[in-house]
């Protein structure tokens, strides 16, 4: 199945083409957004369209991960997150 429901791609594509999104994208990136990938899957639904969509999504994930993180990620949450506040322990 596609990575996201087809209706999601349709909604994102229409939103991508909206004036409001153009303004936000320009405010951040100084250029218009690229909206064409979503449409292929909806209209053609061929193996080629699926491959193209998956490649597009993989590229999106890779782009999000390409920057080296400033910090080390945890393996588990902080041990004291759920502990009572210090003043509550005195009650």
């Amino acid at each position, binding site marked *: 199945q*596609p*990575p996201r429901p087809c209706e999601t791609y349709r909604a*994102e594509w229409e939103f991508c083409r909206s004036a*409001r999104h153009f303004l936000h994208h320009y405010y951040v990136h100084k250029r218009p957004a690229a909206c064409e990938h979503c449409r292929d899957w909806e209209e053609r639904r061929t193996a080629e369209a699926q491959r193209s969509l998956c490649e597009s*999504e993989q590229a999106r994930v890779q782009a999000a991960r390409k920057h080296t*993180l400033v910090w080390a990620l*945890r393996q588990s949450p902080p041990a004291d997150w759920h502990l009572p506040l210090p003043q509550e322990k005195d009650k």
Partner: protein
Amino acid sequence: MKHSGCAVNKERHFSCEDCNGNVSGGFDASSSQIVLCQNNICNQAHMNRVVTHELIHAFDHCRAHVNWFTNVRHLACSEVRAANLSGECSLVNEIFRLHFGLKRHHQTCVRDRAILSILAVRNISKEVAEKAVDEVFESCFNDHEPFGRIPHNQTYARYAHRDFQNRDRYYSNI
């Protein structure tokens, strides 16, 4: 937060207090608590931004080893992300502050507000704060977790939430 193992309990993890100066809120990593400055938060929209801002710090504390007190680059990174993702640098908010700009102005705002936030909580020089922010900016500005995108308004936030709910299907089918 819950998905990362840090479910938020409002009685435990939030505190409403009177604060000095014009600080709107803060995240206290030593007690895992978000402080909201009840004397300085003026309306619901401001409240929403402050809560989002501090929850981003809490999220970073939950998912990463952030040395809040000993590594100014770590602090700078979380402040860049909080300014970027909380809505405080939206076009409308910047216009209200009389900061006019369009092309890539979002980045300018994020940088400036991150520096201000650092200076509000650390006794360091502006130059040290600027250097830390500039060193980490590229990486931290592009780290949009947990949203996957910059939530400029409710529509973006709604799409981000939908993607989060759909994440299992998404990562198993790409």
